């Protein structure tokens, strides 16, 4: 299986430059690798809180920002070394869906505009009539009625409808990958499920891979095959959604999962004191970034960054609690994903 979209040892540092160098540089994403394979449609969730680097990852993968080091490749070509034709193909085949279904629309244009634009730009239809047919098909695919959608202005649709129009727009481009950055965080609960179900449908029925970037572990668990949990720009834990969420191994993932407000009276929060995750760290860690807040931190955690230990076939945890587990011989967390090609040599079976 050839890699389709590949982030290879990508680091993105913001700030720190300038003549006066007054600002401390911020490492938004730290030596991160992820591969989305061609020929195997997956849903991969990238989960993290504010400051985890998840949105930076989206911007890098879309080529909106260039990595400080490392490379982003599409079909084996680095984004910054593409020909015009390759770039156009990349732009068509990797489609974004963003958080704010209000900001994406020009209020003066009808909904139709946002849908005809990609058809013109990528010459997706030979005639206006065929273009119209494609639009109708795409809208129906995401559960919208074309006659209730087309001809309207953005303010006449609800947030959930607008977000589904954005999914339909992405779909029109016949993409290989949809990169959805918090696509439902501004949408009501009852509509959230509908939008996520439409992403799931594109994945299952049309073979489109989805990268679902979110702060919400519950929906991530529900729709994705695999999850990458980021903490301050580094992978805390990654692997099959079932393993990572149901039996988290990294103390940070455990803290996150136990803090989810579940609508389940049988699984209520306990009242213990939590580490103050927002407070500036009292002591700098040259090792694990989570060490200052980790209830299980040991000396080694402060000394050097933990590698990606592989305590199970389909999971890695960047944590010294699993020193006897094999270490993944690559940064690419996708190696342990559920349907990934058979484990690399040296990995536990």
């Amino acid at each position, binding site marked *: 299986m050839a890699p389709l979209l590949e982030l290879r040892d990508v680091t993105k540092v913001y700030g720190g430059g300038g003549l006066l160098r007054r600002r401390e540089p911020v490492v938004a994403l730290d030596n991160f690798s992820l591969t989305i394979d061609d020929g195997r449609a997956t849903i991969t969730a990238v989960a993290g*809180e*504010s400051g985890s680097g998840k949105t930076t990852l989206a911007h890098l993968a879309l080529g909106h920002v260039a990595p400080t080091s490392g490379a982003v490749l599409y079909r084996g070509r680095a984004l910054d070394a593409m020909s015009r034709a390759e770039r156009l193909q990349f732009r068509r085949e990797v489609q974004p869906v963003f958080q704010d279904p209000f900001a994406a629309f020009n209020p003066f244009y009808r909904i139709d505009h946002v849908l005809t634009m990609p058809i013109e730009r990528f010459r997706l239809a030979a005639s206006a009539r065929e273009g119209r047919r494609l639009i109708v098909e795409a809208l129906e695919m995401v*559960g919208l009625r074309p006659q209730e959608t087309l001809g309207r202005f953005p303010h006449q649709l*609800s*947030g*959930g*409808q607008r977000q589904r129009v954005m999914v339909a727009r992405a779909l029109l481009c016949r993409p290989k990958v949809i990169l959805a950055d918090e696509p439902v965080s501004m949408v*009501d*609960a*009852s*509509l*959230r*499920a*509908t*939008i*996520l*179900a*439409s992403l*799931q*449908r594109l994945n299952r029925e049309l073979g489109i891979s989805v990268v679902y970037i979110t*702060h919400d*572990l*519950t*929906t991530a*668990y*529900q*729709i994705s095959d695999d999850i990458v949990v980021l903490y301050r720009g580094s992978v805390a834990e990654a692997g099959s959604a*079932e393993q990572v*969420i*149901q039996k988290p191994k990294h103390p940070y993932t455990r*803290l*996150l*999962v136990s*803090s*989810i*407000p*579940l*609508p*389940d*009276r049988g*699984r*209520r*929060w*306990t*009242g213990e004191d*939590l580490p*103050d*995750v*927002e*407070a500036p760290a009292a002591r700098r860690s040259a090792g694990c970034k989570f060490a200052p807040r980790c209830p299980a931190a040991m000396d080694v955690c402060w000394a050097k960054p933990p590698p990606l230990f592989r305590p199970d076939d389909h999971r890695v945890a960047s944590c010294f609690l699993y020193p006897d587990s094999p270490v993944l011989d690559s940064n690419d967390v996708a190696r342990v994903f559920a349907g990934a090609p058979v484990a690399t040599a040296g990995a536990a079976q």
Partner: protein
Amino acid sequence: MRPNDAVGPAAEPVLQVEDFAVYYDTPRGPVKAVDGVTFALRAGERLGLIGESGSGKTTMGTALLRLNRPPARIVRGRVLLNERDLLAVPERELARMRLGEIALVPQGAMNALNPVMRIRDQIEDGLLAHGQLPKRELAERVAHALARVGLPPELADRYPHELSGGQKQRVAIAIATVLSPRVIVADEPTSALDVVVQRQVMLTLGRVQEGLGAAVILIGHDMGLIAQFADTVGVLYAGRLVEHGPIDDVLAAPRHPYTRMLVDSLPTLEGKRELRGIPGLPPPLLNLPPGCPFAPRCPYAFDRCVGETPLPQVVAPGQRVACHLYPSHAELPPPPAAAGARLG
């Protein structure tokens, strides 16, 4: 967080809301944002008011304290707090009751702190509005208010930008509770916070409430948060309270079809399953026709639902529902065939 029977049914009601209605005046007619809401809140009770965008939950939260601004207008109803009607007392009396007896933590409160005022001055503001105090006592009260939300006293001399999001939200709770109100209305107090911080802030709010013996109305859109925090829940739809009862009962056996579908749409960690949304959209609140506002989306709807507005009725101990399926049904029957909410 605490035993579920913390609020006995025998506890006295501290707040009684009766037939409360708030309309927005628009050139095209009134928008009925809150329409005929009735409920009682017992001392020490935690009520979660859940609703989606446009359900009227924020309008109701502000109007309960008469803090609504035009074009929002309180049309009718009574809000009885300690046997006085908040909607009828003169402005001066109302000012005394606010903060003193009922306090609001408004939506986005953490971003509404005054950026050029120290935390101390912002807490003192509320105290001084209720009477002069010697300097020393002021300082003590500020320190006490901060301690109540788990913040150190030295934080009083900082400015909002020096605090984290969770700290700011806790300051907002400290400001609201400085005069030990009997009712705290908290509107989405954690909406912009990460989950771990959210949990901390909610636990803080719970501790403050228990310390004061106050009742809380938690307004929100997240059933998970309400399930974690509340004793009782009220479900708002199109400005009406369609279901109200103990949170355990409502989650385990929702009686209103909207509540049922809302609960079913929530993603859980209890194994993967098909995601189900609620088809359709809430109705526009301008010129809402008579009948049940949920009828157009309801798989159970029958003739009566279209013309006749259902009134809340008691269907189980402490559980009230506004739906024509009752009293002829004891529980919500399975949905009629072919009308399932499966969406493509």
